[in-house]
């Protein structure tokens, strides 16, 4: 139990540190905005200090529900529970965010929800295929047993494309690089109807926390495929994620339909190929 609690707290601490390091590095790069070392934390405090105006009062509670499900899922993944429990928790978390976006009854909220649903189909498919491949390779869906298997055998050698697919999912969920489903506009023009995320103020602060917790969940899931000690594997996956975040600053944004195609190829296609390959072997 102590180990589970340590993992839980460790992941909650390490993920904001990744964001702080990213901010620190980008701030030192010429041509990028200057920022304070603790700016992501300042931003979070600022969001919590703002009001939470919505035309529908219930909207502000959906991010809270999502955050609770993210915490429960983080416990599941720290304790090495069944991967189907992790999938269920993540789906519930996403549904809370999507319903919250829909409940604003505003055009941009509904559009955000539509894109969220298309994203949900991709990553839930990838996680289901990953679960099936794990069962085929290891004979169990329980992550704590996968760790034992991974220590004695190189799981990554049997499921390389599944691990790559899950990393693509982590990028999809972080809106990074060619997997950015975000609808935040950077344009100065306002001549079209605004199409923006529906969350602001405290709700946005809760969503930010939820996203950090969720990033930790995906990094921990990816680390199960790596052959080293669990802490080292987690740190390696965190370093890879940090590299993806840094690359995000120099990668141009794409139209979301192309993002969708990329996501299906990398997050949906690669694990499926690995699954078929396992059957053929």
């Amino acid at each position: 139990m102590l180990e589970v609690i340590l993992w839980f707290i460790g992941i909650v601490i390490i993920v904001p540190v990744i964001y702080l390091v990213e901010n620190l590095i980008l701030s030192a790069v010429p041509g990028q905005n200057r920022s304070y070392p603790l700016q992501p934390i300042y931003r979070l405090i600022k969001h919590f200090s703002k009001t939470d105006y919505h035309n529908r009062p219930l909207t502000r509670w959906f991010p809270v529900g999502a955050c609770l499900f993210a915490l429960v899922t983080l416990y599941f993944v720290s304790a090495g529970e069944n991967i189907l429990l992790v999938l269920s928790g993540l789906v519930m978390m996403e549904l809370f965010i999507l319903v919250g976006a829909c409940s604003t009854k505003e055009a941009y909220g509904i559009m955000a929800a539509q894109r969220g649903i298309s994203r949900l189909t991709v990553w839930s498919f990838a996680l289901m295929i990953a679960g099936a491949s794990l069962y085929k390779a290891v004979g169990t869906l329980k992550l704590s047993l996968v760790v034992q298997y991974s220590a004695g055998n190189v799981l990554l050698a049997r499921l390389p494309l599944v691990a790559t697919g899950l990393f693509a999912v982590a990028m999809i969920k972080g809106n990074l690089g060619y997997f950015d489903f975000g609808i935040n506009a950077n344009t100065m023009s306002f001549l079209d109807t605004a199409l923006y995320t529906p969350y602001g103020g405290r709700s946005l602060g809760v969503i930010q926390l939820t996203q950090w917790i969720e990033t930790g969940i995906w990094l921990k899931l990816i680390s199960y495929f790596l052959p080293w000690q669990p802490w080292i594997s987690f740190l390696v996956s965190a370093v890879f994620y940090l590299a993806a975040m840094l690359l995000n600053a120099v990668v141009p944004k794409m139209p979301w339909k192309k993002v969708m195609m990329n996501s299906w190829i990398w997050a949906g296609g690669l694990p499926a190929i690995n699954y078929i390959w396992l059957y053929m072997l």
Partner: protein
Amino acid sequence: MSWLNGIRAKSISVMLINAGGCTGCARQFQAALLLDSGKGITLTGNPRHADVLFVAGCINNKSADYLKEIYNKMPSPKAVIAAGACACEGSLFRSEENGINPLEKVLPVNTYVRGCIPEMDKMLEAVINVVEDGYKEYKDGWDHDTELER
């Protein structure tokens, strides 16, 4: 609470709107963000994420409606800055008969940055000061929590 305003001033999201004109003020502000004195200020295209609405250019009746919509979507506390001669008083265009307004007739303005084009440092100073001072309102009778009618 001064400590909270200090933290807010270290992470300011600015929504930059160019409402018309030569776009010089908006471009000047974008360039200013690369200076060290603009530390902690980021541009956002999302009114839900914005703390400060930075308006440059001349405002007509059509753009006034959009400005009000964007302003209403910003969570409180929030501030509005009028930058450049056009947004502050209509400048060259004020005698035109096509509904050119100074920004203060459309939105509650906290601070004015005058000049054509205003200096970079003055723009950044205005943004940081308005947040550090706790979003104090410039004009009596305005309330940032009230939704404006389009």
